[in-house]
């Protein structure tokens, strides 16, 4: 099973924060800020693919 297939993607999510964290060094500053900005932008990828399916 590939890495992508092991990931549980909930509605609104492309790459969950838990997965993204594995690619990052230990966060030295505000981890919640990094998480929030990651999730705020990650969800646009989700919007893109589901709108392609439903609206276009």
């Amino acid at each position: 099973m590939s890495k992508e297939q092991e990931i549980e993607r909930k509605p609104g999510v492309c790459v969950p924060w838990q997965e993204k964290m594995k690619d990052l060094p230990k966060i030295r500053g505000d981890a919640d800020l990094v998480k929030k900005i990651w999730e705020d932008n990650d969800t646009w990828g989700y919007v893109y693919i589901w709108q392609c399916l439903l609206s276009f």
Partner: protein
Amino acid sequence: MSKDTKQLYAQRMKRYTAAMRNEKPDMIPIRPFVAEFTAVYAGFNCQQVTHDYNLAFEAAIKCARDFDWDAVVANMVYVWTGLTEQQGTKYYAVPGIDLDVDTGFQYREPPEEEAFMQPAEYDALIEDPTGFLFNVWLPRVSRDVVAPGEPNTFHNNVAFLKGGIAMLNYFNAFGPQIGRLTNECGTVSAIAGILKAPLDILGDKLRGYVGLCHDLLERPDKVMAACEALMPHLTHVALSGADPDKNVPITIWMHRGCVPFISHEHFKDIYWATLKPIIQEINSHGHQVLFYAEGNWDHHLDSFAELPDGGIIYHVDTGDIFKVHKKLGHKFCLSGGVPNYLLSYGTPDEVRDVCRKIIDGVAKDGGYIMDASAIIQNDAKVENIKAMTDFTREYGAY
């Protein structure tokens, strides 16, 4: 916004929302889903309004200014082919490219053996719907996107970039467009948010209708599991686009989930069993759902009647609007029922006659919104749309 326009907008919003809640407003609201008709009226062709959304927006504004309509869709020529071309979408026939400039865009369903999802792939969709769409579906529906594991290409990289930017541009343009409808025309933006039933989207964009019919007989458990896997995503997308003020409804575009496209059993056990909970969830957030019941869904009115009063607005296409009113009129607002063929080939007098019959038959106690049966395209005559509008204003006051 001038004081008059502000007042007009408030009056129309009150009228529209009262009817949708199955109440009796001051008069019957008019909410025509005008698509390529707007192009004809504004002096454009289908290529122009499909490929340049700014022209489509202008056409919608011109119609909203000139006709006394309470609510319209900000752009009912909903597929912007500028975007689909950027990501290389294969399944549209585009006016001006694949079609003549005066023909509206068309969806081309592939033959069964070339369906965008194959029967053996149900488990992959069920396991990870979003991953499946990115990794399997998009590469198949796009001329440019390549699947993981295949050699990457320049066209693949730019398709994602340009497609994403194009979608953001398009969606961001709706705010100002709705602002113009409100401030320049006093017209309500009729809907917000999109929903499709799990079984419909499985047929429309993944398995194709013929493939889905085989699956319903040969692997119904997989079909059911796929619909269940799609449910939370379809709910999420619908709610994320909903009107925060909860005035206007999320719209479900209902396609081929009814008899005779599928059996009564498949409707009850799969289509409705996986759609009803979505509607209930949306209702629990305070949003109504507009059932845009394309075709004839009269066999399933008892199922729709299971929903709580006011939970939906039921739009009638080729169903029998008088029968629908008997079954659902005490629970839900109805809309539509004016045949599109009449708007194209009939006379203004014939249009007025049908409008009179509908108003007399279903609208006496409120809870009705005037509209054509289906989306109004470039074959409708302007004089017939005027007749529908003017007659409803004259005869539709309470």
